[in-house]
């Protein structure tokens, strides 16, 4: 439905580099990347506010790269809402109905029904300056949705809202999506991407570096950047070697990690989740094939336990409970054993 073909755009100190992806009809497509990765710029290119240096944008098979903004049928909701301050909420929402062949009453009904969908019917006669951030966000959504865009572009719609409003707006966005609206949503928040998107593309330094379903992207992050971004801390470039039919990942040519994989020898990367690691005072016999000794360098409280960082020649992040910290009496400088199963290690071939 919406197809980007090798979009490039150079700006001083910033660029989009041959960005391609494809949003299908009915998708909730998440574009995930850090601030300054070029996400907003990409939306402006799709909407036609910025012309790309190279590449094309297709909408329903039609090349719209050089089409006039007002004829594209693409709705864009800006991060800061961009509500017209001199117009009432009603005038804001009805702004795009100007050219429609509707009489005054039909227009008013359309504004009312859109406002009702977004739960802002009682705000119609208010001035934008009297609205809260969450209300402005809904007005911006209503104003864009009323023109029934083929694709709805959302620029960090949840970024400026507090937790409660976020949950509210998320369910609102799900509702809009369920009604068949194709959505392209950019965000820097992977939880947001996971909870809303049915497809995710990760953008870094103006380039799409991974694309897939949320499961694919979060289970098998292909790049260190993606891994860090999605919260996987133990991510290492390795060389896979085979010895006596067993596989080992060699990290920095010094640490050998036993891996269970059918992949042939070669280069790749290795992912180990912090919660799959357990710690002990003494070396212990268990089914775990990977056992290393190391010194604790940092202890960081996290929302779901405590992150213990150990130096075993490489930095390993282990996630354990507060209780374990106390029973094992772990402090910075403690020397501990770490254990993890070969089956807990995921190897992804380059």
């Amino acid at each position, binding site marked *: 439905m919406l197809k980007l073909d090798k979009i490039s755009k150079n700006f001083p100190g910033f660029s989009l580099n041959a960005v391609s992806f494809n949003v299908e009809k009915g998708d909730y497509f998440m574009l995930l990347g850090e601030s300054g990765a070029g996400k907003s710029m990409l939306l402006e290119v799709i909407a036609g506010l910025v012309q790309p240096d190279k590449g094309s944008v297709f909408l329903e098979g039609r090349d719209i790269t050089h089409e006039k903004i*007002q004829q594209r049928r693409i709705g864009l909701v800006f991060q800061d809402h961009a509500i017209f301050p001199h117009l009432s909420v009603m005038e804001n929402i009805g702004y795009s109905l100007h050219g429609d062949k509707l009489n005054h009453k039909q227009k008013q009904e359309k504004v009312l029904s859109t406002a009702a969908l977004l739960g802002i019917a009682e705000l119609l006669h208010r001035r934008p300056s009297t609205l809260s951030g969450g209300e402005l966000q809904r007005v911006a959504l209503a104003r864009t949705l009323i023109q029934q865009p083929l694709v709805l572009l959302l620029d960090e719609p949840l970024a400026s809202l507090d937790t409660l409003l976020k949950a509210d707006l998320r369910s609102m966005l799900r509702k809009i999506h369920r009604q068949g609206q194709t959505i392209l949503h950019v965000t820097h928040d992977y939880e947001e991407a996971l909870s809303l998107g049915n497809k995710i593309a990760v953008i870094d330094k103006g380039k799409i570096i991974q694309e897939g379903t949320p499961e694919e992207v979060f289970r098998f992050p292909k790049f260190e950047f993606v891994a860090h971004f999605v919260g996987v801390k133990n991510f290492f470039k390795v060389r896979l070697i085979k010895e006596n039919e067993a596989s080992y990942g060699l990290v920095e040519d010094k640490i050998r990690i036993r891996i269970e994989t059918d992949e042939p020898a070669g280069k790749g990367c290795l992912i180990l989740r912090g919660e799959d690691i357990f710690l002990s005072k003494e070396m212990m016999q268990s089914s775990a094939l990977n056992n290393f000794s190391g010194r604790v360098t940092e202890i960081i409280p996290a929302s779901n336990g405590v992150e213990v960082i150990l130096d075993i020649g490489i930095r390993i992040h282990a996630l354990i409970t507060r209780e374990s910290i106390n029973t094992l009496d772990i402090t910075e400088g403690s020397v501990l054993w770490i254990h993890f199963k070969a089956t807990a290690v995921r190897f992804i071939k380059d």
Partner: protein
Amino acid sequence: MKKVLSLHHIFIFLGALVLLFILAPLLGIFLKTSPVSLFETAKETEVRDSIWLTIWTSMTGTLIFAIAAIPLSYLLVRKKFPLKKLITGIIDLPVVIPHSAAGIAILGFVSRDSLMGKIGSSVGLNFVGNPAGITIAMAFVSIPYLINAARDGFAGVPERLEKAALTLGASPTRVFFTISLPLAWRNIVSGLILMFARGMSEFGAVIMVAYHPMITPILIFERFGSFGLKYARPVSVLFILISLSVFILLRSLAKEKNVE
């Protein structure tokens, strides 16, 4: 222990001096003019005609040139183009050049043997010694005030609002009239009032182009030259009073529009 004068006090003292400097001459002229002489002067046709001429020529110049000056201000804010700095400089030229010299330049531009003059003559319009010439001279010296104020106004309109309007299906023309212009309106009105006021008070440029029909600043000069200070004073006071009331009226009208 008492502090010697603080910086704050010194500033207040200096500020008061400036205020006095502005108010004292005005107060003086008002106190020295008797209500009777003011009344008598107001009855003179020559005076009334000249005040009316001054108001309408300046008003006409402001409105006609605004049609081109406001779009120019918008371009200067929104578009990047070569020689933009130079153009900005050109716009400020009328403020910095001596106005009598500007008057000579305008005279050369509109006199009967110039291109403009010839075009005017062909439709029976002679700029020299004519309200049309006065309007041009007034507009020439006062247009920078409008352009600069409108430019500030457009610069204060977030570009994102215009972009949002475009994505909502509005044409660039509709965006200009429904978003940019209303949001910059306050500054534009200030600019219009400033340009109008500056045009009304112009003397140097106008006298070169048209001594007659006589605008009030020239009438004041003529009465002073022919009859002395005493005769020039009532016209001056009357002109000051009328200018002030016109500006107060315009300002309050503009305010009402903004509140609505």
